């Protein structure tokens, strides 16, 4: 009894200590967003201001059209997320759950494309999208995600390979088609991994600056990451409003993570299957 209590206390102590370390960047961002210019310029550094201001929030969020950029960003995030989850899981099923000779070829080709740095393929890729008339639309930021990201395919392949073969074989013996096995057995079992893919793609699209910068020219289509650059002139950055906007932009992400994280720990409950 005591031992369990001690163990729990030790665990909490460790977790709390680590939490302080991991909270630093966020806490820094939030406190900075509440500082006046005087406090920002203070020396020695003021970590926790005695005087705080909310004007960074009130004013800072008017510098760029926040609601519009928020909506634009959500559109890109939502569709690219949908594409990533659907296509990556579909492809990963073909790589992990079906025994066929070509699967390693496809897998290796996908992995190989990850190894080419983006900066040397950026110009031909831009030309390609321009030829198709896709520049100044969201298509370059969304459509490719419907054809499988290598990172996500690899991630899901690893999870799918953990699903018992017996289970798939039994379903096949029962006459279930591959599409049915994919949709009814594999997807539900891999929920934590799918949630992870959704989260990662959402965040990638949320934070992407280069893509929107290169492909979009109409400022009505701009995204939040471009909005965050509005605070920097050639000579200085207004840190207070920048941190305020960054904080506000982060809130939906934190909420999303908090809601999604329950899914990460929903086990595949293999025990019942293996039994």
């Amino acid at each position, binding site marked *: 009894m005591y031992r369990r209590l001690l163990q729990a206390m030790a665990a909490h102590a460790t977790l709390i200590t680590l939490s302080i370390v*991991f909270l630093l960047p966020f806490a820094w961002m939030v406190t900075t967003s509440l500082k006046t210019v005087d406090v920002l310029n203070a020396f020695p550094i003021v970590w926790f201001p005695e005087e705080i201001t909310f004007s960074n929030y009130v004013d800072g969020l008017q510098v760029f059209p926040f609601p519009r950029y928020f909506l634009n960003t959500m559109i890109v995030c939502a569709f690219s997320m949908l594409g990533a989850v659907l296509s990556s899981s579909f492809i990963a099923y073909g790589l992990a759950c079906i025994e066929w000779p070509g699967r390693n070829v496809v897998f290796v080709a996908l992995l190989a494309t990850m190894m080419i740095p983006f900066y040397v393929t950026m110009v031909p890729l831009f030309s390609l999208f321009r030829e198709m008339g896709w520049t100044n639309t969201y298509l370059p930021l969304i459509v490719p995600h419907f054809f499988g990201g290598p990172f996500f395919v690899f991630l899901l392949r690893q*999870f799918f390979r953990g699903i018992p073969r017996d289970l798939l074989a039994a379903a096949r013996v029962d006459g279930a088609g591959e599409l049915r096995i994919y949709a009814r057995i594999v997807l539900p079992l891999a929920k934590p991994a799918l949630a992870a893919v959704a989260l990662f793609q959402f965040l990638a699209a949320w934070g992407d600056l280069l893509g929107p910068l290169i492909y979009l020219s109409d400022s009505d289509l701009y995204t939040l990451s471009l909005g965050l650059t509005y605070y920097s002139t050639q000579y200085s950055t207004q840190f207070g409003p920048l941190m305020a906007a960054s904080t506000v932009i982060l809130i939906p992400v934190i909420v999303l993570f908090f809601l999604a994280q329950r899914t990460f720990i929903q086990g595949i409950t293999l025990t019942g299957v293996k039994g």
Partner: protein
Amino acid sequence: MRRNVFWGLVFTSPAIVGLLWFTAYPVLASLYYSFTSYTMVNPPEWIGLANYADLLTDQVWWSSLWNTLYIVFWSVPLGIVVALGLALLLNLGVGGRPVYRTVFYLPTIVPAVASGVLWMYIFDPQYGLLNDALARIGVTGPGWLSDPGWAKPALIVMSAWGVGNLMVIMLAGLQDVPATLQEQAASDGAGPLSRFRHVTLPYVSPHMLFALVTGLIGGFQFFTPVFVMTGGTGNPAGSTLVSGLYLYQNAFQYFKVGYASAIAWVLFAIVAALTVATFRLVGRRVYYGGQ
């Protein structure tokens, strides 16, 4: 068998179409550029292996490769250990886990421009939190980001903070470990270490392989933190000039896209070789619960 090939092709068809549609042309174009004097704005002119030959005698390239290898060698295993450690802690049955999980994930999502300034305050030789803490235990800390010998370790420490994504993957992976196996091992008298070694580790091994391979691939392209911390110069004294940064400088500052492409393909060859070696050495020890 034929049925399997059919369904295999059906399921991987999006990948095949995507590779042909969006990937093949840019990737092959960059391979072609690596044999040309392409400047991004002029038509490419074939110069054979000249870019690759130049690389052999380019001191900046060799030192950038060394910096990259150094950072990859330390940051990839460190990231895996930290992520797995956090995931294991979060998998214990203590209360408040949702909050802890969110907290540990926060550094991953705080914008780089926000955390960058904080890192300057942490690593500053005079005012930094880190050297302040060290001074309390009687240690005089180094100059970190202004000391050529300590800048790379500082970057590696920074990278360990942002392991949120890997932590989520490990956490999801830990859910695959059958509780009955854990209980059985415990009742057989296995200690926590032994249970970790023989029960937990095999089940997360596919994800460790994933982390290792994607860590290698990402590590060789790493350079965003260098921009945040040193403004992209590679200072102090070129000690943080990594290959990814050198490639970027060549493409967008020196207009040597042909040369940058050659760098990209040499890096590709190195990463591909390391990946094959990883699959050979580690891949066979990976335990897939399904098989």
